[in-house]
């Protein structure tokens, strides 16, 4: 793959990709072959920010590294499922306020939406909205639903939701415009934990229906 490298200050490069699949493939390829001095990779819907410590990894060297990995990566290799050994199970009570209407929009019953959502193999594509929030995608979920016309001023922590092609879980109470289909008591965000975000980019996720 190719893709522009855009300037982003003295300690980062912004890599532009043509699709989310390219983002996922390049993110995994870069993460599998890190350079000393790499601070972090911040994926988003069409970009990856490559943040470096320029004293240990000069921007020119980072650029060469990204170019080389891009050249050896194809988006066909995009893995929307993430590494098998890194799977989070999120137990969901599917009783969200928007469940029936969202199912109706997709032409399904609520039971059918629950069955498909909990059968799909998800992967955290990127984060960004709040600490611990992940945008989840799945090859088993080629469906899209619009955001709510009027966002809620208060969405409770643990709300499981859909918007666009993504699913997500609100790690804490916040405003939000996603469609609520259920709730979980999973510990999504815990700064005292070595791995503070349950839904960290790259992780595989399955939702399990509970009653």
């Amino acid at each position, binding site marked *: 793959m190719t893709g522009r490298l855009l300037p982003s*200050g003295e300690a980062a490069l912004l890599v532009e990709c043509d699709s989310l699949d390219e983002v996922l493939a390049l993110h995994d390829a870069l993460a599998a072959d890190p350079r000393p001095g790499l601070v*972090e990779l*911040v*994926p988003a819907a069409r970009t990856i920010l490559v*943040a470096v410590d320029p004293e240990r990894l000069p921007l020119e060297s980072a650029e060469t590294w990204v170019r080389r990995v891009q050249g050896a990566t194809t988006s066909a290799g995009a893995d929307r499922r993430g590494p098998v050994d890194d799977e989070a199970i999120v137990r969901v009570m599917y009783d969200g306020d928007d469940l029936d209407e969202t199912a109706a929009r997709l032409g399904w019953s609520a039971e059918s939406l629950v069955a498909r959502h909990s059968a799909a193999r998800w992967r955290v594509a990127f984060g*960004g909205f*709040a600490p611990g929030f992940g945008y989840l995608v799945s090859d088993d979920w080629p469906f899209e639903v619009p955001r709510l016309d009027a966002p809620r001023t208060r969405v409770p922590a643990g709300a499981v939701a859909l918007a666009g092609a993504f699913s997500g879980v609100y790690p804490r109470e916040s405003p939000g415009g996603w469609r609520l289909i259920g709730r979980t008591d999973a510990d999504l965000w815990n700064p005292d934990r070595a791995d503070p975000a349950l839904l960290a980019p790259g992780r595989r996720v399955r939702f399990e229906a509970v009653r």
Partner: protein
Amino acid sequence: MRRLIIEAVGPLALVEDLGRPGLAHLGVAGSGALDRGAARLANRLVGNPDGAAILEVLVGGLRARVVGGGTWFAVAGAWGPITLDGRPVAPYTAARAPDGAVLELGTAERGLRYALAVRGGIDEPPVLGSRSRDTLAGLGPEPVRPGRELVIGDEPEASVPALDQEAAFAPPDETVTLALRPGPRADWFTDAARAALFETPWRVSERADRVGVRLVGPELGRRAVGELASEATVPGSIQVSGDGQPTILLADRPVTGGYPVIAIVAAASLDAVAQLRPGQELRFRHA
């Protein structure tokens, strides 16, 4: 145990260190002292490591009593009246506060944010490896209020250095010029907009905090109408909202933004943004 007992607070006083880098992929911004140079300087003046936690005091109005033993302290960043038991203390200089002394930071005359370091640092519990308050994410030590007791850490190995005041430059109160690097989305803007960014004076609006500083000036027009998918930003990113007005994103910004970034404030100019006062004029030059 030595402590600072907070008796009065102005608009805002926060515990900050050099932040928590490397967690943007989990939705956590770097946060940390907005004027990092001031935090480092204040720490060095009292022999602390650069990353010791300081108090970032917005505008002034802080009164604190030292208890449990005396301590060295230093104030950098904003320039204003500092007193110890009512007697003036020089800024940008280490001074010794005896047990029971009352330290006061008056209203800043230059700049906006004081960095108050105490020898040993402020020892609040770290969150994700940092004692910084992130005002947007709500992480780190709670904003400081009257009655709060802040524990002072153990004395560092290094002694209080014999530094003179030569490093002291009060923040400018006239037009400030900031160096800019190209932004990732400069090509989203018209040639006229890119020229106007550098050729016209800008003014700091009232909407200025640790998340970002919104500027007032000519409308920066876009070349093409389009929606940008949200992407990661860095401190100093100048994003331009739909109404054509720029905002300099700072330490507590959201880690991704959906507005195009026209330029990025060079690292060497970023600390100056922390000291800009609402209404102050600024100009941009190429880094």
